Structures are given as structure tokens and as C-alpha cells.
């Protein structure tokens, strides 16, 4: 451990911290090191601290006040994100990495943008695909596709998270399933909202890049899929957008983003979350030829972490946090519209 390593403090030590962040931090241990971890569950905090040989606490304030913590990772349940990010900014940390979503509401996200600007503390959202080498090569190679693409498809078929988590780590204190006392319509509405803000949100920033008129959104349909998933059709400006996501037990995961124009199809295939399986692959089809980029050994999580470390060292340009707030507003708008539609159409035929 070199003296130049930057101290990391983690708020929330659930499966994502254990399977994603700790293994990734370990890969770049020359530049960052976990010095303090916090979880409201003391057993979890202590267990994770013993893995990384750090201090631990059950108090977010205490972790944020720790002067050795230079980078704060917000990896708690979503409803705590905004307050914890803001507290870390106010404490003058060198960088804050917040797991997606940045916040629950647009108002919270705008407040974060404002506090980040005031305090000069850079904020990064853990949208790993925006850091994935496949996305970066797509950006470098797509030419005028953002303007010319007419159809955007974003489809996720994933095996259960627990399966992926177990390939990436050994999870301590996995939260149990909750007993459901809600009505069927409330469950459907929650599945839709939760799926958009939990799963679809990963690549909604990618979708938004392809939708310059991102405030002009018309919901064409939204359906909840069994056992927990969504199918949403949208018109965003002049673009046709379909979002599809589902967890199932089969062994053919798919995480694909496509942009289609009159003469080009761009397809990005990402690996599943949690696992450390290298980057995605970007492929361009132009009717005559196929050009492919990747895979590389570095995945989005690692690039994200290298960027955060560079930021903390003052060696990288910060992201525009109001742009991240726009991403969040785009996602919340879609989640709200899709959920309202699920409620309004509950029980009616999809073709009615």
C-alpha cells in the first residue's frame, strides 16, 4: 500500500459493494484503498471491514467525517442516495461515487447538482456502461448515427442477480425476500417503477444520448412481465424507442443496446452486471461489412473506478452534474409514465 493511495469510504455494504466495488478497488489497489466502511447492520459492516482490513462504523456521519476518507461511495438503498451524496459534498471530499440511481426525484438530483457546483466536489454516477470501453469505442466510431438513427432498442434478459453475485464474490448477509401484502395492482406498479429505476436506468443515459429531444416523450405502451420485468414502447422526439428487461432462469443472458438508421445498425453487447468479465463489444453493420470493437479485459466498473481515482487526484475533468440530473429526470419521467399506464390499464387486454 503506497502512501499515495487515496482513501475510500463506503456507505452501504450490500451485495453491490461486496461483488462489484471491492473486487474492482482491489484491481486498482495501487491508487485507491478502502479505509472505512459503513452499514446500518453492524455485522455486515464488521464482516466487510475484516475483508478489506479497514475501520467500520454504523454511522454515515462518522464515515463522512473521517479525514482519511477522500472518496465516498454511496452504495446504500436508493432512498438514502441524495442525502448521503450531499453530505459527502458538504464535507469537501475529493470525489463522490454514487450507485445508480443518483436520486429518487428530479428535485433531489437538481439539489445534488447545485451542491456539487457550490462545493466543487465532483459527483459520478455508477452507470458502468457509460464507462465501458465498448461504449467509448461506439462514441468514437458512430459518426452521425445520433442524428440519423430512427430506432433505439435496449433489451436485457438476465439471470437472477444472486447467481451473478455468487460468481463475483461470497455474499455476507444477503437481504431476505420480503413478504408481500400489497394488492396485485400495487405490486405491478411497483415492479414497473422499480424495474425502470433499478434495471433500465443503467442504459437510459445511453438511450438519451440518441434522443436529442429527450423532453418530448410519449409513452406508447408499458407492461409488466412475469416474474419481474418490463416492456415499454416510447416515442422520444422523432425516435422509436423500446425498453425491455426481464430476469429469467435460463443461461442466455443478453444486455444489448441497438441504434438503427437507414444504412447502419450499431449493436453493443454488454456482459451481465456484478461479474468481472471484461468489456462489452460494439458492432457496426452497414449492409456490406461488419466492424467490431472489443472485447477488452477492462470492464465498465474498472474504468469507472480509474476515472474516480483520477478525479480525486485532480487529474480528470469532472462530469457535468446537471447533465447527470437530466439523465435522472429522463428516467423518472419514463418510470412515472410507464407506472401510471400500468395502473390505468391494469387487467385490460394488451390489445384493447
Amino acid at each position, binding site marked *: 500500500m503506497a502512501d499515495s493511495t487515496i482513501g475510500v469510504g463506503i456507505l452501504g455494504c450490500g451485495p453491490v459493494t461486496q461483488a462489484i466495488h471491492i473486487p474492482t478497488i482491489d484491481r486498482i489497489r495501487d491508487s485507491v484503498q478502502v479505509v472505512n466502511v459503513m452499514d446500518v447492520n453492524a455485522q455486515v459492516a464488521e464482516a466487510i471491514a475484516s475483508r478489506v482490513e479497514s475501520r467500520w462504523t454504523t454511522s454515515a456521519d462518522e464515515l463522512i467525517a473521517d479525514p482519511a476518507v477522500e472518496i465516498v461511495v454511496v452504495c446504500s438503498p436508493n432512498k438514502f442516495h441524495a442525502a448521503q451524496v450531499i453530505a459527502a459534498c458538504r464535507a469537501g471530499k475529493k470525489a463522490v461515487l454514487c450507485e445508480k440511481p443518483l436520486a429518487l426525484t428530479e428535485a433531489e438530483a437538481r439539489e445534488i447538482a447545485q451542491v456539487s457546483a457550490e462545493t466543487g466536489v465532483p459527483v459520478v454516477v455508477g452507470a458502468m456502461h457509460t464507462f465501458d470501453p465498448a461504449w467509448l469505442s461506439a462514441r468514437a466510431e458512430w459518426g452521425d448515427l445520433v442524428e440519423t438513427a*430512427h*430506432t433505439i432498442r435496449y433489451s436485457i*434478459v438476465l439471470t437472477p442477480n444472486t447467481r451473478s453475485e455468487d460468481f463475483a464474490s461470497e455474499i455476507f448477509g444477503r437481504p431476505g425476500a420480503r413478504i408481500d401484502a400489497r394488492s396485485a395492482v400495487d405490486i405491478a406498479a411497483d415492479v414497473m417503477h422499480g424495474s425502470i429505476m433499478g434495471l433500465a436506468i443503467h442504459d437510459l443515459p445511453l438511450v438519451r444520448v440518441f434522443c436529442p429531444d429527450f423532453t418530448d416523450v410519449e409513452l*406508447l*405502451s408499458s*407492461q409488466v*412481465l*412475469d*416474474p419481474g420485468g418490463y*416492456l415499454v*414502447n416510447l*416515442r422520444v422526439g422523432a425516435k*422509436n424507442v*423500446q425498453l*425491455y428487461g*426481464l430476469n*429469467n*432462469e*435460463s*443461461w*442466455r443472458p443478453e444486455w444489448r443496446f441497438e441504434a*438503427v*438508421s*437507414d*444504412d*447502419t*445498425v450499431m449493436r453493443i453487447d454488454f456482459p451481465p452486471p456484478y461479474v468481472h468479465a471484461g468489456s462489452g463489444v460494439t458492432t457496426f*453493420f*452497414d*449492409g456490406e461489412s461488419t466492424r467490431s470493437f472489443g472485447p477488452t479485459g477492462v470492464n465498465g466498473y474498472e474504468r469507472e473506478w480509474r476515472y474516480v481515482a483520477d478525479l480525486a487526484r485532480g487529474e480528470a475533468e469532472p462530469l457535468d452534474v446537471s447533465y447527470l440530473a437530466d439523465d435522472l429526470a429522463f428516467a423518472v419521467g419514463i418510470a412515472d409514465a410507464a407506472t401510471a399506464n400500468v395502473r390505468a390499464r391494469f387487467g385490460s*387486454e*394488451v*390489445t*384493447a
Partner: protein
Amino acid sequence: MTDSSTTTDAPIAFGVDRLTVTSPGSGPYGDPLLVLASLPESLHPVSSDADLVGLRGTVGWTRVAQGALDSGARGVVVVAPEPVDRDALVALADRSSAPVVLDSPWVHNPAVSAAAEHFRRLTGPSALVEARVELPLASDLFQAALDQLSLLRAAIGPVVALRYLRLDGRGYDALGTLADGTTVSLAAILTGGLPAAATVRLVRPTEAVEVHLPAPDTATPGQAIVSGPDGAVLQVTKYESAHRAAWRRVRELVLTGGRSDDARGFADDLDLLSAAVRTATP
């Protein structure tokens, strides 16, 4: 080999049960019958009075098909059938004398029949079926939807209700249901970026089935993959064009006295689609 009912995949014995084939000339309904070169022992071209008649499915094709049956054809293949008058279709379907096989572009790819039993086993309210076609720019979207409905009918079962979400110059998105309530998402995407292709995928909580079909004019194989908790299986890959398989099917039906429901199904799909288009928002 004498039991013709087992001929589907077996090699064809020399000269056995060879049927003659013709096509109505070089006009709009004439088909060059190039496929015959790939079935030289099963089918033999003649200029008239053939066992089988192959024709293009250009507008008005039902009249030509009726004429062929009236003249004693034992079977008819309609290549790439276009929309036609419903009554004429029903009349054709009601003639039990000889099978009329509709060689709709995707239907006869061998991967469709390889996947069909799995699709049918796994449909139900907890399944979602996604059907997507990529087609060249300026393709006729009514025809695209009709061909997609034919594919779904062959692979899984008929779509019984349909609603367009979007229909514009770039393609369409629609939602449908199968008779058992399974939701179907249908899409066409027009682009020159990819060769024409069709995909159907069924996903449910524990299994998935998907079939990828290339354009029907070559023997580029379709692929059918069935996956579940135990892994994924790529079904047998057959390098046979959909078009050739359609001709083998009509031959088989003729030799075994089998019937074809293609015209009836086509009429139902046409009804469904026409109604959906009328209510599609412009």
C-alpha cells in the same frame, strides 16, 4: 423406399414418386422454378399438365391457383403470397381436393419446425413472445406484418388480437395475443444495415426459445436455440432454404393425401391485420 410418409428428412430414392411441375409462364404469376435444380429426383419440370403448379403470389393469385386446381393440379405452391380478396381465399381453402402451400418468406425455414414444439410447449400467460423483422428500406409494411403473422402461426400459433402502437415509414411496433393469452410484441425495422432477417423469441421465467431466420432466398441456415435451467441447446442446423422446404412439403402432402390449412390461416391473418391497420394512429 416405399413409405412416403417418412420422407421428410430421409434421402430420396432414385426416380421414386417423382412429381412433375410447371409454372404459368413468364407473366406476373410465373415462377422460374429455380428450386427444381435442388430437388432433381423429387420434382421434374414440364411445360403443361403437371402434378404441381408453382406461381408467384402477385395480387390476384387466388384466381390462378383456382385455375390450376380446375385443370387437375394435385398441389399448388404460391411463392411470396400477397394480400388478396378474402372470399377468394376462403373458397380456395374450402377446396379439399389438393393442398395449396403458401410459401410465405419465413415459414418454411427448417429452424421454424425445429423450434415449434418448444414454442408450443412453453406459451402461456407468463411468457412473452417477441417477433422482429429487419427489412430493406421502403419495404411494404402491410406485407411485412402479414409475413410475420404467418411466421408466428407456423412457429407458435395464430395471433388472435392485434394493436399497432406505431406504424410509420421506419417500421412498426405492435402488441398482440395468442389464443392462450400469451402476449406477443411485433416489430419491423427498416434498414439497409442488415440483410433481411426475422427473429422470434419466447421468454418465460425459467426458459427461453429463440429462432433466427435469414432471408429465404439462400440456404443460409436458421438457428433455433432452446434454453432453460440446465443450459442451452442449439437445435439441428439445416442448410436448406425455406423455399426448398416448402416444395418438399407440398410434395409430401400430395403423396400422403395430406391437406394444407395455409389459405385459411392466411385469410384469418389478413382479417386481423386489416382491422388493426384501420385503427392504427397515423
